[in-house]
């Protein structure tokens, strides 16, 4: 916990006890301060005179002049660095940082009135993604799964957010396969009959048996797209290995967590290992990954490169956020296009290579997300129907 986390927690506890009309009961659990200090804190917050003192002190400050001083000294000391841009750019950027910071305090900050008036939004039909999937049964029939609808068969149960296969289902020699297809703008979670959990990202397809044959290698296929696997260990299945097939590669595991990204519109397949051990096998090579490593298979020339990565950037999608650290805007927009089911046009080729760093919440609207990107990376953008143009 960083020092400010502690302060934030304590502050919200204090505010909470004030809102509950309690005295210091709630705070007694906190060992950070003595009782005298707690009383001092509470009285400073509530006491009318103390409030008045703070108010008077603040009104003596000259924030405007302070900012001008700041600008002056930065200009003098680093002549080349911070260029003064026209003021309206500050306001557009300033408005957007509120969303970047993702903090409620900012909501009262008249963001609306600060919003850049350059952004053109015509018929914004871009919707934030939701939990949804199409289940394709062994006979080819299709079932739509989405939030709010339930579905039940003898082997599986879905509440519209995930589908769970029964661990009791008996596997027969002639294996029955189901396929789960996630559309653009969707995501879904599945638990296979061996207890393996799989998170499926937008525009992905997973094919798997309704039940696995005891003691035999468990095999599933990531037809395309992105999936995060938390594999039930081999030790719980008489040593049966787990394999994830893809037309370009095969992942062999013993019981582990990893992410595979194999989109049709990308020339690389990314396999990121979080925990345990996996082997990445292709027609031409076999490589083993250790936790924290990522293999990148170039499907054009079949070479595999392995590097260490910040794994959370790779798997944050399954936790409802997108975390990017210096990601190229073109690659980032591909990720967003799948979740928001939209088209992206870059007016300037150079913009594709802008690097972006930040955290976006998957629950945010496309306009919120774009204003963050606009504040840090691009000049302007326009939305028309389901298309975003980066200007």
């Amino acid at each position, binding site marked *: 916990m960083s020092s400010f986390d502690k302060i934030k927690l304590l502050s919200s506890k204090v505010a909470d006890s004030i809102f509950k009309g309690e005295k210091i009961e709630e705070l007694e659990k906190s060992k950070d301060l003595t009782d005298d200090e707690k009383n001092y804190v509470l009285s400073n917050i509530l006491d009318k005179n103390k409030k008045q003192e703070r108010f008077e002190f603040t009104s003596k400050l000259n924030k405007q002049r302070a900012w001008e001083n700041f600008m002056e000294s930065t200009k003098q000391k680093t002549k080349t660095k911070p260029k003064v841009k026209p003021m309206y750019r500050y306001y557009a950027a*300033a408005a957007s940082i509120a969303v970047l910071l993702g903090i409620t305090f900012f909501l009262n900050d008249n963001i609306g009135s600060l919003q850049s008036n350059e952004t053109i939004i015509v018929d914004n039909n871009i919707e934030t993604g939701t939990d949804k999937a199409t289940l394709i049964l062994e006979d080819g029939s299709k079932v739509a799964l989405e939030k709010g609808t339930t579905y039940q068969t003898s082997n599986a149960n879905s509440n519209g957010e995930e589908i769970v296969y029964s661990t009791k289902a008996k596997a027969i020699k002639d294996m029955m396969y189901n396929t789960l297809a996630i559309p653009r703008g969707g995501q879904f979670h599945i638990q296979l009959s061996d207890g393996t959990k799989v998170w499926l990202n937008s525009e992905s397809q997973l094919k798997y048996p309704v039940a696995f044959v005891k003691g035999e290698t468990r095999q599933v296929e990531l037809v395309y797209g992105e999936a995060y696997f938390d594999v039930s260990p081999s030790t719980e299945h008489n040593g049966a290995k787990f394999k994830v097939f893809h037309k370009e590669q095969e992942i062999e595991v013993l019981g582990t967590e990893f992410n595979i990204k194999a989109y049709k519109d990308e020339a690389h397949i990314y396999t990121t290992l979080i925990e345990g051990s996996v082997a990445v096998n292709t027609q031409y090579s076999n490589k083993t990954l250790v936790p924290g490593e990522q293999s990148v298979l170039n499907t054009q020339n079949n070479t595999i490169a392995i590097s260490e990565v910040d794994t959370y950037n790779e798997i944050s999608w399954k936790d409802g956020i997108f975390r990017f650290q210096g990601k190229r805007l073109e690659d980032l927009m591909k990720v967003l296009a799948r979740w928001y089911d939209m088209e992206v046009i870059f007016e300037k080729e150079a913009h594709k290579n802008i690097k972006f760093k930040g955290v976006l919440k998957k629950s945010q609207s496309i306009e919120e997300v774009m204003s963050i990107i606009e504040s840090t990376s691009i000049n302007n953008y326009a939305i028309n129907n389901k298309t975003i143009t980066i200007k």
Partner: protein
Amino acid sequence: MIEENDRLSLGVFEKIFNRLYSPLCLFANKYVNDVNYSEDIVQEVFVKAWEKGLYFEDLDKAKGFFYVAVKNASLNFLKSHYSKSVKAHPPENLEILQTENYFIKETVILEASALVEKAIEALPPKCREVMKLSFEGLTNQEIANKLGISFETVKSYKSDAYKKLRKDLAHLRIK
């Protein structure tokens, strides 16, 4: 946190400045007990942070940095000027000012006050009036007399307000 090609844009930095300048000056004042010294210290800290090209992922990260930086700058200021017996007259002796608990107390006062103020401002006007007086320590009867409303009405405003405040606070906790 520090990455060379990944600094915040000036616009973002200005936003952070606008949000934090006043609370940081209030905070510095708890060490140096002087408006002008407080402003100088806070400005200097902002200039240094900009020159270093610091990157903050969110406002909390920025606060975490600036509170500590302003505390250190204030203590350094006191140490340098004390010896030269300039006019500085800190509110407590240096040993107390240097403790972690002093830092926690003063930051929590500022942060919790901001939470309380924000939540109160979001209440409907009548509720707000009642709650402000209640937090100042007035009894329900005193509030009723002061606002010219009945005792029962005060109680009902307070109950509504507490419900809403708790809801708002739950909202503020979302990470």
